């Protein structure tokens, strides 16, 4: 049954799966057909998600588009899908990024012996698991998608990645699986103690009666899984390897969307289910977040591999997101969710542009570039924009979210906010230094000899970057449509945790918690 007219979420979830099967069935000898079908299919999914965005009632019920079908009655696990504002923006983010990434990966498989239909089918399969994770409103279903999403990404990294792909793929899989199994233990514990149901609402009620100590253990089970996925310091070491080895498009999805499952999970499951444990753990989480901001930024400064560098910057950004969540103010929380969206756009763009450079140079080493801007002025300009967006320059979307996180945190934990501000300075350092070493300065003579380096941005690449650039500018100047959707969901989550904001906030349209 659904309470909206159209079963938006189940169609949205299953459509990419069907698309993946269709694309996988296209024979290997017709790579072009596979690409076109995959692109058209992902655009259809995007269209559907935009329709859902329009149908979403801002200020309406917290969970909308709810659908629930019986699945495993013995365990009371149901196929329940529902979206609150946080899930909605994440769904839209993945729907936007997948067609962009498919277009950006257009020639990635051409030179290898690999089958294009497999690669694009895996991308769609990955979209299926991502949408499932964000749409699930049944704890069991969420866990299923949470684990299954490893498989397409594992094969993307392992089969289509760069030099160290085997090592990176296995490390990625094992890290995530370890986190997943911690969560499995917690899910089982929650199920037994929560009255043998997986229904999110009932579990939230039942979880209140679990004794403090047990609840803290269960919280930790969930938290470790999400912290590894996010990745928070000190669980982050898989990301630079995975991001460095994955093909560029997949890396953009990995860092742009998949990582958000971690922070999304904390917001959706850790905080409402275990409010007391969340408050108990908040100081530690804040410390980890701040360490992550500074430490990953310092490491990013020292990287010579472009893809690894971007991966480290995103670990630093996840520190901000984590800090915003555990500050427990609506302002910081809204900033965090907005940051999840903006980071997906900005880092996705940065990854894709860096990928365009790497494809031309045939190397990801910063030292192999130098003065590339003289040969590729437009592409270098876009990279500069992506870098500025990534370091949260005012006028670009990430600025709004970073600002909200910092002032939201400052009102309750000024010390952390002040230290985190140092991260912004470091961000400027790693971004500007990277751009200077690759695009500015004297022209590296090796570059001038490569014919590819004389080919500035192509039409296809313009189509790839245009939507992301536009969205980053648009949301930088006018974030209201997104914050309007996020804000009520974040407020509800913060009420679940039982914190009250220190002072009335004026975020977005100023709906203030009573």
């Amino acid at each position, binding site marked *: 049954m659904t309470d909206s007219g159209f079963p938006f979420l189940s169609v949205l979830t299953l459509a990419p799966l069907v698309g993946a099967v269709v694309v996988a069935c296209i024979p290997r000898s017709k790579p072009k057909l596979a690409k076109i079908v995959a692109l058209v299919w992902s655009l259809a999914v995007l269209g559907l998600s935009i329709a859902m965005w329009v149908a979403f009632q801002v200020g309406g019920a917290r969970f909308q588009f709810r659908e629930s079908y019986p699945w495993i009655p013995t365990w009371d696990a149901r196929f329940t899908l529902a979206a609150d504002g946080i899930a909605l923006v994440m769904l839209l983010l993945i729907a936007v990024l997948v067609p962009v990434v498919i277009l950006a990966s257009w020639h990635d498989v051409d030179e290898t012996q690999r089958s294009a239909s497999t690669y694009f089918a895996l991308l769609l399969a990955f979209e299926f698991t991502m949408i499932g994770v964000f749409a699930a409103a049944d704890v069991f279903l969420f866990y*299923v998608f949470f684990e299954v999403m490893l498989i397409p990404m594992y094969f993307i990294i*392992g089969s289509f990645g760069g030099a160290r792909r085997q090592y990176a793929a296995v490390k990625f899989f094992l890290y995530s699986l370890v986190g997943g199994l911690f969560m499995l233990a917690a899910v089982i514990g929650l199920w037994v103690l929560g009255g043998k149901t997986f229904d999110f609402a009932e579990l939230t009620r039942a979880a209140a009666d679990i004794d403090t100590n047990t609840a803290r253990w269960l919280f930790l089970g969930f938290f470790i899984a999400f912290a590894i996925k996010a990745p928070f310091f000190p669980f982050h070491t898989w990301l630079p390897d995975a991001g460095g080895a994955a093909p560029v498009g997949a890396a953009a999805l990995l860092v742009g969307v998949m990582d958000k499952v971690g922070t999304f999970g904390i917001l959706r499951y850790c905080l409402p289910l275990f409010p007391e444990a969340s408050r108990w753990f908040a100081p530690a989480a804040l410390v980890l977040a701040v360490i992550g901001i500074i430490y990953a930024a310092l490491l990013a400064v020292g990287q010579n591999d472009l893809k690894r560098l971007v991966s480290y910057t995103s670990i630093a950004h996840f520190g901000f997101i984590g800090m915003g969540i555990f500050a427990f103010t609506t302002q910081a929380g809204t900033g965090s969710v907005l940051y999840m969206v903006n980071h997906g756009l900005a880092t996705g763009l940065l990854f894709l542009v860096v990928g365009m450079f790497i494809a031309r140079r045939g190397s990801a080493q910063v030292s192999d570039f130098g003065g590339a801007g003289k040969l590729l002025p437009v592409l270098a300009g876009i990279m500069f924009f992506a870098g500025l967006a990534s370091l949260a320059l005012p006028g670009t979307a990430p600025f709004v979210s970073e600002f909200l996180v910092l002032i939201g945190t400052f009102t309750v934990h000024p010390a952390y906010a002040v230290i985190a501000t140092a991260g912004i300075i470091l961000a400027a350092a790693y971004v500007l230094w990277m751009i200077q070493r690759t695009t500015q300065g004297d022209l590296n003579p090796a570059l001038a000899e490569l014919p590819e380096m004389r080919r500035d941005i192509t039409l296809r690449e313009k189509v790839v970057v245009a939507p992301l650039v536009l969205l980053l500018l648009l949301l930088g100047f006018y974030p209201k449509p997104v914050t309007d959707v996020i804000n009520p969901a974040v407020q509800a989550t913060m009420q679940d945790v039982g914190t009250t904001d220190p002072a009335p906030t004026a975020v977005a349209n100023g709906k203030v918690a009573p």
Partner: protein
Amino acid sequence: MEKLQLPPIDYRALAPMLILFGVACVGVLLEALLPRRARHTVQLSLALLACVAAFIMVIRERGTRTITIGTAVAVDGPTLFLQGAILVLGVVSLLLIGERTVEPGGAFVAEAALTVGSQKDLRQTTGAAGGTEVYPLVLFALGGMLMFVSANDLLTMFVALEVFSLPLYLLCALARRRRLLSQEAALKYFLLGSYASAFFLFGVALLYGYANGVHFNQIHAAIANPARSQVLLYGGLALLAIGLLFKAALAPFHVWTPDVYQGAPTPVTALMAACTKVAAFGALLRVLYVGFEGVRWDFQPILGTIAVLTMLVGAVLAVTQTDIKRLLAYSSIANAGYLLVGVLALNEAGVSSTLFYLVAYGFSVLAAFAIVTLVRDADGEATHLSRWAGLGRRSPLFAGVFTFILLAFAGIPLTSGFTSKFAVFGAAVEGGQTWLVIFGVITSMLIAFPYLRVVVMMWLSEPGDSTPAVSIPGFLTSAALTIGVIATLALGVLPAPLLDLSDKAADFVR
């Protein structure tokens, strides 16, 4: 003189066993009567028919809850469920055993006793049709397993143990390739199995002394009476348990498993991994839940330690294996540990989750060994892991199927491996055995690594010159493989029907 009174016998309830034993005897006669050409087809069809007929009887008797033939046999929910499981898995194993197109003449030799390397032996190794006595042997083994899970006293259980073990010892020695390894496996299995049987029998003797009887009822009643000798009780239980733990391949009584799994003909390995496991855990469930329920808190920590040890041994040693059959053997040891976690939940959910796990695991392991029979070169199966490198490039379909099965073993959702692990862990947490679940989760992490290593081998390595091609499977192997894979997927995506069934079947009669 008192007139000997025969106990009433419920033949309908015993029909599945009677069918199998009867057809097995007919099969022995047919060996002597039929011409050699006709034997394979007739014996295979007869064996399959017998299993199907027995399975139909199990379904028709599904409501039966009775103790019959004196107190020797109990037919109740777990019995019928386990018998059904053994028969279904037995049919699939028979399909693998009957395959003759993948390897000319089948996986078995006609005469195991020929000196290895002699002219006659070489002739029978390369191409001569294999013996057909395997089919009656398999039927005897399956019949013994049906009896094992329904035995309601320790002597019946001992008889059943021998009835199903002896044919298995023989079957192990019949491999067509690597004859020495096969014979060594059979000898090892036979010797260790005999020791285990001896322990079992000694345990029965002590328990007879304790309870003045061997029926589970008498033991149950005796435990309620604190005046009896605790030494006899615990000594008897310990010795009895050794016999059962051996069959279930639980540490530290698991050492035979890798050698026997490696040496036996692969279809027989599949039969042992799927059906023997069902039988062994079925008996363990009945002994612990019906006979010794009164001392559950005494054996729980000891068996819990064994479960932890088994999971650790299976997971850790699987990491170091370089032979796919040995890897699957250690994986089956680890799975035995998870099954024991379900058994030790000591509640109704424990029974039903164990039943579910046994079926789910049986199908997956049959599919896994079906693939192993297909990856081969001129010398037979290529079981060394290095030979599997790049298989994904050579035969994407089979590498894909095997990957799926490995993901099931690793417990990834949407496979039966996840559902069954969830079921046993859930039952154990409910039964207050959280510590077992924690070890279960830790070892699940460890054992994911060897599975992943095989996946990496198959997909992410370049094929070498020595990478064998995958044989085109014959109809029988295709059927077995398809059944195994579909069951693994179905029990992962839509497990509700079997979960319901196992829930309803979780009632023992006493």
